[in-house]
């Protein structure tokens, strides 16, 4: 125990003297949490639309106005040449083209139906799909208005209209950052912890100071604990800063118990630090440690359910995510902060992460050899 005390004293001294590490724990998370949610927004808005109007009638003008009235669409070009509009798709200036055929208004009255042509840049398939859906909705509304106008004295022709009202639970204003911030916080916590712990032991290896340690009677458990504990404590600092930013910059107040968040984070930090330490014991250079850590992090982040939802993944991928610690903390963060979940809802998460913590740290202790 005494040994551990001295170890921790040394580690903390080194950490506080290293401005880079301090910046990472304090400044970086703050900056990232403020910047990322602003940029990370999947909403489909301000879609550039070009309207090719061969008709130039009152009706087409009305449709034009209706489309541009919303902030779903920005009018990029109003033209009567389709090739003209298409070059805009080619040059990324517009994403959607609506083509109104010649004789649209007249044809609608005379023949009772008309077809409009939508062409979208579908490289981003989801965006295109949603954009098309919005446009269709607007056209349909326009159709209803037009019909009402044309049939202003009719009684028999009652068009069936299904009105859809939407209630959004947990996030009534559909604020995207409410969703992203807890997840990004979880991500930052993970990245910082893995990065710092992965580099730590390797650095001693590269510098040669680890030899001096290996020649002392320090046990492996003491050594690894000495590396684990400081970053574990600092993880809480980062967490607190993150929660403060969430509160004061984004107005996110946890629905659930904050203590639960801290409790889970404690176990989680142990697990990811364990991963970093494990990497650190097998890597030979800092560069290697960094790359291996990055590799894992990248996969964890991609499959963590933050940027794309786990439910959309194919079954085999969903099963794989059970091995991904990031998945659990993102879920817990969201469940507790946004939905006010209690311990019983995250029992499973606790169990898994505790298991990971034990396995990874034990592995790190066993892998570390004082005698080569």
């Amino acid at each position: 125990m005494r040994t551990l005390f001295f170890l921790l004293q040394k580690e903390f001294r080194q950490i506080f003297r290293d401005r880079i590490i301090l910046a990472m724990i304090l400044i970086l998370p703050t900056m990232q949490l403020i910047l990322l949610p602003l940029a990370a927004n999947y909403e489909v808005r301000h879609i550039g639309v070009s309207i090719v109007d061969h008709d130039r009638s009152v009706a087409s003008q009305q449709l034009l106005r209706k489309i541009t009235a919303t902030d779903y669409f920005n009018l990029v070009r109003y033209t009567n040449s389709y090739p003209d509009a298409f070059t805009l798709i080619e040059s990324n200036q517009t994403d959607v083209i609506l083509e109104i055929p010649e004789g649209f208004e007249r044809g609608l009255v005379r023949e009772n139906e008309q077809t409009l042509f939508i062409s979208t840049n579908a490289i981003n398939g989801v965006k295109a799909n949603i954009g098309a859906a919005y446009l269709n909705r607007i056209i349909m509304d326009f159709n209803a208005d037009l019909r009402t106008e044309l049939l202003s004295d009719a009684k028999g022709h009652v068009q069936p209209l299904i009105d859809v009202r939407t209630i959004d639970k947990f996030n009534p204003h559909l604020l995207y950052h409410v969703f992203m911030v807890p997840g990004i916080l979880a991500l930052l916590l993970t990245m910082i912890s893995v990065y710092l712990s992965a580099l730590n032991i390797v650095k001693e290896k590269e510098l040669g100071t680890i030899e001096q340690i290996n020649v002392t009677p320090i046990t492996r458990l003491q050594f690894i604990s000495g590396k684990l504990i400081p970053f574990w404590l600092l993880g809480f600092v980062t967490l607190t800063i993150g929660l403060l930013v969430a509160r004061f910059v984004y107005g996110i107040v946890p629905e659930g118990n904050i203590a639960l968040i801290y409790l889970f984070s404690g176990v989680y930090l142990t697990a990811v630090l364990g991963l970093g330490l494990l990497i650190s014991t097998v890597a030979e250079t800092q560069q290697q440690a960094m790359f291996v850590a990055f590799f894992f992090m990248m996969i964890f982040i991609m499959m963590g359910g933050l940027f794309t939802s786990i439910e959309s993944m194919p079954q085999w991928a969903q099963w794989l995510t059970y091995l991904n610690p990031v998945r659990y903390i993102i879920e817990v963060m969201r469940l507790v902060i946004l939905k006010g979940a209690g311990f019983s809802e995250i029992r499973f998460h606790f169990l898994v992460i505790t298991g990971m913590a034990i396995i990874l740290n034990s592995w790190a202790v066993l892998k570390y050899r004082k005698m080569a």
Partner: protein
Amino acid sequence: MNTVPIISVRNLTKAFGSFTAVDAISFDVAPGEIFGFLGANGAGKTTAMKMLCGLLSPTSGEARVAGFDLATQTEDVKRRIGYMSQKFSLYEDLTVEENIRFYGGIYGLTLAEIRRKTAELAADLGLVEEMQKLVRSLPLGWKQKIAFSVALLHDPAIVFLDEPTGGVDPVTRRQFWDLIYAAAHRGVTLFVTTHYMDEAEYCHRVSIMVDGAIKALDTPHALRKRFGASSMDDVFTLLARGAQRSAD
């Protein structure tokens, strides 16, 4: 040897695949001796020393160090020895005092003892003003002396020094050997590797390693006589003429 040897090595071998770095060496070191472990770069000195410190596992052979069996009681051995590596390995981003505090604590010294030792070290090395400075800011000669003193903090029975005077000026080298003598005087056994042949003269006994094996072991005086050489340098040249390996 009249007394029980403090280091006793029998057929200690280290092979890395097909390359035998240390080839079945055997020797004894008496308590209080300054034992010089000489050889060219690549002869296997550092490898042998690392085995004796418990840093490297032997491929075969036995050793007893400071009263414990090296293979089965490694951690006990570590409690009784001190080590100064070839590459400077104290913490550059800590002060002198902080390094002492850390290592003193690790070895089980009480805070009072640590304080006392720190003051002693500062006085002995004449570094009273430097104690609060980061080690990184000190010149190499001072660093080496501090490393040596740290190795002695816990009053070990043996101190292993790997090329302790590498890269320092002759005056500092001289001062360093003064420190070594002072320690020997107190009863510490010193196991020193070096490729400076003149330093061999300072040792009680010397062994010369060539290509992983001990080619000669005796007092400097006896070796010079045996080989009809006027200096240890010449002794070494004679022995090393047939050497195959030249770099560590």
